[in-house]
């Protein structure tokens, strides 16, 4: 079995601390609101349902099919979770999936987890929900609405989440905006087709066997004006920011501003230290060499310690 890594999960080191913390705050806000909504809307059978469905989405990501040559398409699951559970529960399910991927499989970083949750659990689910709802309404309850809506929801959720990932990388100064955003968008426009096809296949089977499950997300839950507004704003922000960011090859002025802001924020910290650095490390090369020696000694010391404790543990037995 191979566990394929989608290039959507940002590892640690690729986002600036500023962007990471901003995304953590945004994710925490949305997830805690989703928790409140799920508790209020749904009965207590939700915990097992969400847990098992999260496990199914995780396991379902192992399902793949040959596209061409060595490449294969596989499932991410934000759209299908949204269609089966409705937006709030789906947000929690995707948060759990992304969280376990980071904590256990290092698929995505821990500091970057806030951003990854936001991209897949918040943006992915929001986009899938509004797309599916809109197509459903246009179809007026006809069968094709489920499939067309499912395909579009899956494709768009991947695509928009990928654009958001590219935007975050660009804002962090990790990848030039005019490369990151088109590259992420381009790759995922193709990956999204696989996602869309699998989602439609899954919906077709569920429609044939348990059609009642497909009405869960429509039922008594009414779309609120607030949610629609937030979704619209989000889409607008992305739609404006992405091309704007990619149109500026010299990196966003925004980043420069933000960098200046960060340096300004850090400057009091620097001033604690007197104007001259510590004696002996005034030269950076000297400090690097010193660090190398210290580090080696440190690792060597720990290795000795491990060897020593092992010998001590073995000696009583022998």
């Amino acid at each position, binding site marked *: 079995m191979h566990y394929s*890594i989608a*290039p959507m999960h*940002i*590892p*640690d*080191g*690729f986002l600036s601390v500023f962007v*990471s913390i901003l995304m953590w705050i945004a994710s925490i806000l949305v997830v805690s609101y989703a*928790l409140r909504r799920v508790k209020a809307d749904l*009965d*207590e*059978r939700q*915990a*097992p*349902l*969400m*847990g*098992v*469905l*999260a*496990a*199914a989405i*995780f*396991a*379902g990501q*192992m*399902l793949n099919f*040959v596209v061409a040559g060595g490449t294969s398409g596989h*499932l991410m699951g934000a759209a299908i979770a949204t269609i089966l559970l409705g937006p709030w529960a789906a947000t929690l399910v995707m*948060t*759990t999936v992304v969280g*376990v991927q*980071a*904590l*256990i*499989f290092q698929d995505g*970083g821990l*500091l970057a987890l806030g951003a990854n949750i936001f991209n897949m659990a918040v943006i992915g689910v929001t986009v899938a929900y509004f797309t599916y709802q809109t197509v459903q309404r246009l179809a007026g309850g006809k069968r094709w609405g489920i499939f067309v809506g499912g395909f579009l929801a899956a494709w768009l959720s991947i695509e928009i989440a990928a654009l958001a990932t590219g935007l975050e990388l660009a804002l962090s100064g990790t*990848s*030039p905006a005019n490369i990151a955003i088109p590259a992420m968008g381009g790759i995922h426009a193709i990956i999204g087709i696989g996602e869309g*096809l*699998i989602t439609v*296949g*899954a*919906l*077709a*089977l569920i429609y044939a*066997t348990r059609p009642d499950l497909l009405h869960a997300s429509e039922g008594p839950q009414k779309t609120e004006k607030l949610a629609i507004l937030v979704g619209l704003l989000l889409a607008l922000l992305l739609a404006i920011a992405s091309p704007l960011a990619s149109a500026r090859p010299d*990196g966003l002025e925004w980043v420069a501003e933000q960098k200046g802001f960060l340096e300004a924020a850090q400057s009091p910290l620097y001033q604690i*230290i007197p104007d001259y650095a510590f004696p002996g490390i*005034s030269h*950076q090369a000297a400090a*690097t060499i010193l*660090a190398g020696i*210290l*580090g080696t000694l*440190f*690792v060597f010391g*720990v290795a000795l310690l*491990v060897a020593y404790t092992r010998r001590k543990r073995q000696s009583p037995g022998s």
Partner: protein
Amino acid sequence: MHVHFLDPYIQADSLVHRLDARPKLVLAIAFILTTALTPNGAWAVFILLLALILAVELLSEIGVVYVLKRSMLAIPFVLAAFPLIFTVDGPALFSFNLGAWELTASQPGLERFVSIALKSWISVQAAIVLASTTPFPDLLVAMRAVKVPRLLVSIFALMWRYLFVLADETLRLMRARAARSGHSDSPGLKPGGSLAWRAQVTGGMAGSLFVRAIERSDRIYMAMVSRGYDGEVRAAPSPRLGATNWIILACGLAVLLLLLMFGLILTYASLH
């Protein structure tokens, strides 16, 4: 077929294994945060951070080679930062022609690229050590201790409990498909049907996986209710942290803070 290999936990009785999951989680996140906050180009600090995590790997007895192999997972993503070498302004290192483009590598660009790659590599090692030395139920206790909402923690717990069951289920579905020649992993063999057909088959498998999962969750819910579940997942209060754990936590955080200061001083010194 059982998919225990999904669980990255490695049984051992090392100092790192014995450390309580709560300080371990906090220290891992603090380590990654320190790495992220270290200014680009502070090589001395990167070396010390690497030495620190290598030392912890040695202490944990899970095998340095294992961690290093696993840490290669994040490598493909480094490509995303690669263009920085050519797009950041600064003193030119070298330049070459690629078709119609002339690419010029700059020193600050290269520095930033190498820094990002190093940060990523060092951080992922900390995450690997955390996952390999801490059983997941202990991580759940740690999550509760750092105030992750209860409902979310119980979703995590239920997901972990059934992940292996559903992964087995998925493997059975895939074996059935392979037995019917719908899929082949060997490159020489042409997979059956058209692309849309293959996608539809896989979609059907995903659909039946979800239907089975939802039906299973109904049965699980019934079983929970019959054992007194009322919507609230209760857990025994987590044991108090011993003095040793507190001391290790404090020392670890102090060392990380020192390293961070060292990095800031270095950068400050090189600017003036």
